[in-house]
C-alpha cells in the first residue's frame, strides 16, 4: 500500500513518437561512434592525413582496455542499482599488490594474480556488505571505502613500488596480429559479463534488483546477495585493471588509479552507453560502445595535437549531450 503505482501503461502515441528504438541507447552510442569515425576520416582526409591507421587502432584499443575493463565492472553495480566510487583507489592498490608480490620474479606471477583477485574481491565484499548490511547509500559507502584504501596507500607508499617481470609485461604491450593482448583481455571480460547478464540467474537478478528491489525481494530474490555479488564482480574488474596497469608501468603506483580518473570516467562511460544510472536498464554492449567513443574522441584529439585539457571539456560536453538525447528518447517524469 505504499509508494506509487509502479507501472503505467505507456500511451500508444508516445511509443509512436519515440525517436529511439527499443534498446535504443546501446544502438545510439554505436551510431555516434560510427558517425565520429566517418567525421574523423573525412576531416583527416581533407588534411591529407590518414585516420585510423593500424597504429591508431592499436593505440585506441590499448588506451581503452583498462578503462573498458573497469567500466564493465561499473556496469554491473550500476545495473544492480548501486555505484562504485572506490575503483580508482582499488586500481592503485592492486597495481601495487601485483608488482610487490611479483617483485620482478617470473615464478610469482600466478601468486600475484591470485593475491590481486583476493584483495579486490575482499574490497568488493566490504563495499557490498556496507551497502546492503549497514544500509549506507552506495555513494557514501564506496566513497568511504575508497578513502580507507586511499589512507592505506598514503601511509605505506610515497611513489612507485615493486616491479613486474618482463614476461608479465607482454600483457600490456604485446599483440597478436593487429590485436593487443590487453584488448583481447578486455573483450574476454566483456564477453563474460555479457554472458553473465544474459544467460545466468545472477545476471537476471541483477537487472531485477536494479529495476525494483522490492519486486525482486517479493519474488524470492535475495537482493542483498545480488548486490554484494555485483560489487565483488566490479572490484575484481578493477583488480584486473590494476594488473593491466602494473604490466604497462612495469611497477605499481599509488596514484595510477586516481590520476586516470577511473572512478568518474568509468561511470561516464557506462551512462554514455545508455545504462540508466538508477539501475535495471542497459547492458555491457552499450558500455563497450561508450568506452570506444571516448577513446576514438581521444584519438582524434591526439592526431589534431590539441591540448589535453581540451579533451576534458569535450568529454564533458559529449556526456551531457548524450544524456540529454537519451532523456528525450525516454519520457522520464
Amino acid at each position: 500500500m505504499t509508494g506509487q503505482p509502479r507501472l503505467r501503461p505507456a500511451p500508444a502515441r508516445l511509443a509512436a513518437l519515440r525517436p529511439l528504438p527499443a534498446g535504443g541507447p546501446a544502438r545510439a552510442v554505436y551510431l555516434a561512434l560510427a558517425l565520429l569515425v566517418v567525421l574523423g576520416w573525412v576531416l583527416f582526409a581533407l588534411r591529407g592525413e590518414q585516420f585510423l591507421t593500424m597504429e591508431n587502432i592499436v593505440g585506441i584499443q590499448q588506451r581503452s582496455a583498462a578503462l573498458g575493463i573497469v567500466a564493465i565492472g561499473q556496469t554491473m553495480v550500476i545495473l544492480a542499482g548501486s555505484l562504485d566510487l572506490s575503483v580508482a583507489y582499488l586500481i592503485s592498490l592492486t597495481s601495487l599488490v601485483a608488482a610487490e608480490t611479483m617483485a620482478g620474479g617470473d615464478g610469482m606471477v600466478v601468486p600475484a594474480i591470485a593475491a590481486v583477485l583476493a584483495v579486490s574481491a575482499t574490497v568488493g565484499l566490504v563495499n557490498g556488505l556496507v551497502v546492503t548490511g549497514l544500509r549506507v547509500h552506495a555513494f557514501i559507502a564506496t566513497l568511504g571505502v575508497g578513502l580507507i584504501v586511499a589512507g592505506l596507500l598514503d601511509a605505506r607508499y610515497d611513489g612507485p613500488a615493486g616491479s613486474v617481470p618482463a614476461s608479465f609485461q607482454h600483457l600490456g604491450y604485446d599483440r597478436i596480429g593487429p590485436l593487443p593482448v590487453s584488448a583481447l583481455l578486455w573483450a574476454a571480460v566483456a564477453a563474460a559479463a555479457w554472458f553473465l547478464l544474459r544467460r545466468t540467474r545472477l545476471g537476471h537478478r541483477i537487472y531485477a534488483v536494479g529495476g525494483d528491489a522490492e519486486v525482486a525481494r517479493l519474488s524470492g530474490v535475495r537482493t542483498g546477495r545480488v548486490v554484494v555479488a555485483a560489487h565483488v564482480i566490479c572490484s575484481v574488474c578493477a583488480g584486473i585493471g590494476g594488473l593491466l596497469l602494473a604490466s604497462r608501468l612495469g611497477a605499481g603506483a599509488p596514484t595510477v588509479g586516481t590520476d586516470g580518473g577511473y572512478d568518474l570516467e568509468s561511470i561516464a562511460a557506462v551512462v554514455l552507453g545508455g545504462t540508466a544510472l538508477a539501475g535495471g536498464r542497459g547492458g555491457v554492449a552499450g558500455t563497450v560502445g561508450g568506452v570506444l567513443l571516448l577513446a576514438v574522441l581521444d584519438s582524434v584529439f591526439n592526431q589534431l595535437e590539441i591540448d589535453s585539457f581540451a579533451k576534458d571539456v569535450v568529454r564533458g560536453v559529449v556526456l551531457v549531450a548524450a544524456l540529454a538525447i537519451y532523456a528525450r528518447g525516454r519520457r522520464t517524469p
Partner: protein
Amino acid sequence: MLKMTGIGKSFQGVRVLSGVDLEAAAGEVHAVVGENGAGKSTLMKILAGVHSPDEGTIEIDGRPVTFGHPIEAQRSGVAIIHQEFNLLPERTVAQNVFLGREPGRWGLVDRAAMESATAELLHSLGEETFGPGDLVRRLSVAQQQVVEIAKALSLNARIVVMDEPTAALAEHEVGLLYALVRRLTARGITVLYISHRLREVFELADRITVLKDGSRVATEAAAGLDTAALVRLMVGRELDAHFPARAGGPPGEVVLSVRGGGNARLRDIDLEVRAGEIVGLAGLQGSGRTELAKALFGAEPFTTGEMRPRRPRSAREGIAAGIGLVTEDRKAEGLLLGQRVRDNALLVARATGGGRPAVEKLLERVRLSPPRPELEVRTLSGGNQQKVVLAKWMTVAPRVLLFDEPTRGVDVGAKAAIHDLMRELARDGTGILMISSELPELIGMSDRVIVLRDGRIAGELPAGATEEAVMHLAAAS
C-alpha cells in the same frame, strides 16, 4: 484447504488484528471486505509471508505452516497479487513470470524453456494479445494483471490473493477479470478477493468475510446477503442516504468554459462548469477523462480551442486562473509523503504566494481525524490523506475544483465525509467537475453527467440518469 485461526498482529504497539479466523475451500472465491484500516491488507500480507503474525496459526491442507518470507508462502502455494503490481517494466513477460525461479541448471537460465512455459501459461489463461517476449512496460494495466496471474500459476499457487484487482482496470476489462477468476476456481484454486466495490464482491464471491477494526465481524454465504446488509456489517450502521442531498437552487455564472478544446488525446471538447454545480465526468478507462482534467488544469494543456477565463499552459497558470486539481493518484501526484500535514496543506498557498491561511481551521473543516498538523502524511490513512489534499486546495479557494477519482481507496466513512465536503464547496459557489469510475457515486453526486468516449464528448445526461444510460453512451461504438 486454508484455515487461519486466531491471527493477531500489532505494529509498534498499535493492535491491527486480533483473533481473526478465516477458512476457505478449494475452488472457492472468498471475499474479504471491510473499511480501510479494518485489517484486510495486513491479514493478507500475513498469509503471503510479508508480515509474520504475533499470534495465531495458519494451516494449509491441514498442515500448519509458518512463513518468514514471501518466498516460503509461495512454496506453500500462496500467491498475492498486490494493487501495485510487482513487475519489472524493463523486463520481458517471461523474465517477470519466472523472476527468482528461472529454469535451468548450474546457475544458467534456460531461455527456451522459460519462454515456452510462459507461452503455455498465457495460453491457458486465454491470453492471445501478447507473448512471453514482450516488454512489460509496453503492456496495458489489464495485460499486466494477466502477467501477475500467470506468475501465480507458475508457482503452482493454490491460493491466490487479489488485493483490489479492479482498481486500475477499465470497465470493459473488469469482465475479463471475472472470467479469469472463474478459470482459476475451475482449476480448484482458492481465490481470496479483497475489494471496496461491493458489486464485484456479489458478482464473484461464494462467501464473504467482513473485518472491522481488526476483528472478524462475520463470514456469510454471499447468497444470504444484500448490499445494505453487508454495508451494515462493515460500518456497524445503515448508510441510508448514500449521498448528501443536492443544493437544489439554480446554478450560478459560468466559471469555466471550453470551446473546441483539443490536444493529442482530446478533440472538440465543449463544456461549461457553473458556480455551485457538480458536473460528473464519465467514460471508460482510456476515454480521456484524466487527460481532460489535466488539460483543463493546464498540466497537460489543450493545444487548440478557446477557454475561459483563460487557457492554461501549465499547472501554475491553471492555479492562477482559479482552477484546482485533486489528482487520481494522491501518493504520486498529490502529496509530499515525507512532510507534515501542515506543509502539505500549505503547499499550494506557498507555491503561489497565496497568503497565510489558518491551517487548523481548515483541517477541522475537512474533518481530518485526528486534526493534528504535525503528523507526517505518510502515517495517515488513505481517507485522511485525501482530506489533506482537499485542505491543500481550499487554502487558495479555487473557483473550479477538478476531482479525479476522489474516493478511490478511501474507506466508507471518509468517503461520506468527502462527499459532504464536495457539496459544501459547491454550496459556497465552487464549480466542481468530478471523475469517478464508480457510477453510483458519479450519478449520486452530479447535477449532470458528461460522458467521454475516445477523447470526445459523447453526450450529456441530466441528474438522476441511470447507470445503463451512462454506460450506453460510454461504450457505444
